[in-house]
């Protein structure tokens, strides 16, 4: 089952959901609106079988994403839950501008609590701003016992490149 906005806010008070910093105006009927963090990684090429990214800080006047390029961003908020599974998506107002916030990897595992890496891909040139409200996270009840998920990405708070072994 998917949590209602009210249920998200109650679960946060009970510490079953972490959203930090939190602002109740960002609650939706079935999700919470997250903001864009200021760090971004820009894909610059391929070397030795590994994609190379350059680190960049999005200035307050914004930064234009170009179509066909791949960028890694991150959520401004620390988001997660030890009780619920999550789906991290864009928001409709941003999808309507053609900006993907992840590449078919929306599932957030129960027990992951961190600033999430966003796989950003623009269909049209689009200007993005630090801390803009850019996407949504929804929370889903689990069926069955929860095991601790061991992930190399758990401790990350900045955009993090793929750690898949070659």
């Amino acid at each position, binding site marked *: *089952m998917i949590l209602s906005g009210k249920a998200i806010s109650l679960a946060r008070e009970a510490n079953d959901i972490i959203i930090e910093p939190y602002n109740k105006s960002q609650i939706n009927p*079935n*999700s919470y609106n997250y903001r864009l963090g200021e760090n971004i990684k820009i894909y610059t090429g391929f070397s030795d079988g590994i994609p190379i990214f350059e680190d960049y800080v999005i200035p307050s006047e914004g930064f234009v994403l170009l179509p066909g390029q791949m960028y890694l961003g991150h959520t401004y908020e620390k988001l997660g839950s030890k009780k619920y599974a999550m789906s991290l*998506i*864009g928001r*409709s*107002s941003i*999808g309507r501008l053609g*900006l993907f916030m992840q590449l078919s990897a929306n599932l957030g595992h129960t027990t992951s609590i961190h600033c999430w890496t966003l796989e950003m891909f623009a269909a*049209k040139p689009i200007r993005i701003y630090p801390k803009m409200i850019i996407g949504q996270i929804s929370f889903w009840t689990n069926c069955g016992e929860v095991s601790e998920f061991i992930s190399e990405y758990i401790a990350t708070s900045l955009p993090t490149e793929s750690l898949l072994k070659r």
Partner: protein
Amino acid sequence: MILTGLEIKKQVEIKRIKISPFNSNNLSTNSYDLHLDSMLIRYTSEILDPRYPPSYEEFTIPETGFVMQKGDFFLGCSKEVIGSDYYVPLIHARSGIARLGLFVHVTADLIDIGSHGQTTFQLYATLPVILYPNVSIAQVSFWVPEGEIELYDGKYQRSKGPIISKVHQDWTDHNDR
């Protein structure tokens, strides 16, 4: 929990789900198939800036079809008016459409509970593909919510036709942080 096709039909009959027009031939095991309306929107702004309203033009898909080129991005919408005050809708492409390289939404699959209208599709082509009016393009599934419900009453309520992004409208909220 996700509703089965037969349960979607039952919920439509008792008016807890609205799908209009409704035809039970469009039900599948866990979803209902949505059709593409003939109106499309193309942005004409050189750079989209969420702080300002984008410029755009509308056009109609002819009966003979319209070719979307690789990399094209348009907004379309479902012919059907959909919504529910009891279940949460999620939008998906039909697998047959995705296999042609066409996205029907851009990571925005979640529809708020209480939102009613023609749903806007965010069409992005990774290969050249021909769009026809009324093609069966997407699916909507319905999910059971947990917790007290506050219904959607936002800026896209009762959408008719494809609706451009209105993100500029809440930019003052963005700055109030």
